Every structure is written in C-alpha cells, then in structure tokens.
C-alpha cells in the first residue's frame, strides 16, 4: 500500500490543488499536489492519489554510476 508510482506533471489546475500526471505508459490521472511544491515538467511520486515527493532527475540519472563507483571503492578497501 505504500506503493508510489513515478509520473510527470503535465498540467496544473487553476486552483493549484490538482495536476494531471503522465505515467509514461499512456496512463494519465489526476493527483492532489497540495503536499508538494511542483511545476509543469517535474517528476513526482504519487501514492493513493497524492503526489508525496518530487523526484530528482539528476539523482536518478546518476544512480547507476554512483553504484559502480561505490562498488569499486568498497572493494578496494
């Protein structure tokens, strides 16, 4: 139940309470965005209809490289 799905904010409603989130597989759903500060184009994690956190694109892109770096560093000890 703590499952949260990443998606991209593509439209924010006029009251700034909800946004349309594109999950990248053709699924687009409304999510409540009152718990986060977001703008169109941001990636968020959505849980039970609420965006709960922003995703860092930079951190995501660097994850694998960081793992490799840690492995080589860790093994070298």
């Amino acid at each position, binding site marked *: 139940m703590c499952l949260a799905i990443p998606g991209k904010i593509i439209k924010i409603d006029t009251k700034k309470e909800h946004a349309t989130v594109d999950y990248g597989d053709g699924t687009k759903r409304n999510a409540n965005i009152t718990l986060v500060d977001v703008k169109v184009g941001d990636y968020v994690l959505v849980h039970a*209809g609420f965006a709960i*956190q922003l995703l860092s694109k930079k951190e995501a892109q660097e994850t694998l490289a960081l793992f490799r770096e840690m492995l080589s560093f860790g093994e070298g000890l």
Partner: protein
Amino acid sequence: MFSLHDKNLAKEILSSIKKSDVHLRFMHVCGTHQDTLVKHGLDELLKECGIEIGQGPGCPVCVTTPKEIEEMLLLAQKGITVTTFGDMIRVPGEHYSLQHMKAEGCDVRTVYGIEDAVAFAEKQKDKEVVFMAVGFETTAPSTAAVLLNKPPSNFSVLCCHRLIPPALKALLEMGETRIDGFIEPGHVSTIIGLAPYEFISKKYHVPQVVAGFEPLDLLMAVWMLVQQINKGNHEVQNEYARAVNQKGNMKAQAVMKSVFTVDEKKWRGFPVILESGLLVRNEFEQYDARKKFEDHLSVLTEKEFVEPKDCRCGDVLRGLISSKECPLFGTLCTPEKPVGPCMVSGEGSCKIEFRYQKKR
C-alpha cells in the same frame, strides 16, 4: 522514465557480498520491498550469499487489529457507507469480512484514495460516509490534507494510521529475533526523511539503509549494510537519494502535525507500541468516526479480541517465522480463502510468497 536495470551490475553486487563471507539477517518493513525480493528471486540469490531477509510488520493492512476490523464491520452493519482500500475489505473479522457484509447488502466501497471517498460523500449528502484510514507515514499526510480542506459534514475517518520508527524500536526491545540491519522503507522515508531513524542506530547500534524498490536498489542496500557491518559502523544511509532527502517532505510533516497527535497503539501480533499511532486532534473531532459514532462503537470497548484460530500472522509480522513455516500456508490459508491478513493484502508476505511460489 527512471530505468534501473543492469544485470551485470547486479551480478557484481552479489559477488561482492559473497566475497565478504558473512552470515547476516536483515529486516525490511515494506510489502513493496518484499514483492521485489520475491518476484525477482533476490531472496534466494541473497541467501546463497549468506544474507537472510525477513519482512517484519511492514504491511499496513496486516498490522490493523481485529478490533479495528470489527469497528468497520459494525459501522457497515449500522447502515453507514464504509469506504476503504481494496485489500482491507477481504480481511476476515471474527465472523465476517467487509466483503461478506457487502454481499449481505451493506454499503461497502473500495476506493483508490481518500479523495474518492470524499467525492462520494459530496454526491450522497444524505448518507454518512466513513473512510477507513489505514497506512503508515506515506498515507497519513493525504488523510490530514483532506481533513484540513473541510470535507462535507457527512464524511469522517476511522483513523488506523501507524508510524514505522516506533515499531522498529519495539522489535529491537522485544529481542525475539536477530536483526543485523534494517532496510528502511523508501516511500515512508520520502515523508519523514532520515532523522527519525537515527536513534535506532545510536541506541541499538543497528545499521540502516533507506532503499528504493527496483531490484538494484535492494541489492545495493544490502551491499551497503554489509559494508557498514564489515567496517563496524552503524549509521543511517540513503540508497534512494532520487526520492528521499535528509529532511523528508516538511510540508507533509506539518500537515500531519496539525491534524494528528501521537499516541500508543496496538498492532496485530504485537503488544501496544508506545508513540506508534496517530489520533485525530480534538479540533477535527467532527471528522473522527470514533467520536461521531461513539454510541455504536461503545459495545466494542470491553470486548476481548482474538486472532483467528491457528493463524500465525503475528509471528510472521514479528519476523519469527517465514510465511512458509506457518502450518496453514497454502493449504488451509490461501488467497481465495484467507485465514489471516498476511494472505489477503498484496503487501502481506504470505500473499506475495503464494503468488510467486509456483513460478520458482
């Protein structure tokens, strides 16, 4: 979007863990972690590397108590519309589940989230609508946000929200099972950040790593725990940096704080755990189903609640046994005819084990 697949890297991580030549037992507290571990066969691969991983109480539906289930059943019986997440309606109560009550004509509805329940209350102003609010820190902010937003007066919540760090402390205090490290739940941590776990490392000297939900996330988290142990460290580390930061979601924390207070709470399979439950503050008592329907629910106050006969969900949730060690598993207790909640919920370790066992 954020692809994290690399078979060679997975092999490299596993071989590095194996080289450490350790025999360790870790615990995670998240059904989604368990799903990734079992679905991809990582639990078996890690076992070959000397690492055993148990689930613990990381399934909100599973740790909901028999009393809370009876509260919902009673409200449904009294003609109140009961709304909740899908898994909850199949959890057996003393005699019935919410699904049985629905078949008997009670108004029980499955919703995707609390806003669906509010939308229903808005449409049906002549009906009382109660939302059974289960879930950890990931879910509690959504309940809080809705109560702050003045929902209709015919809407209320039966608050069953619980907090993860006090349960980790309870597990360590009870000392029934060996825990060499915790893999902390990524999505709970998006809300609370890293600070609430720190006392565990300091007081109990247990290493912790917050992890994401891809297979590589979990392998890396295990690797990080092994590194900590090899170096004699016991810190809180963050593997899931793309979603979790040190401070967490402070806006969500503030929303929770303004709607809830913290109190002791009973968890299924556990004694009462101090500071592990959320109560709706008095300012929002018009939305607190326990106060609104006190007259109906008072019959349950003195009642003794027992776990289903021969059900070992409590032992599974405390990490004492694996699902397969329960004598009912897969025979008398199946997803079609569950005895306990761990076989009902998609986050329950019994349901997860049953779902994937045939593919192994």
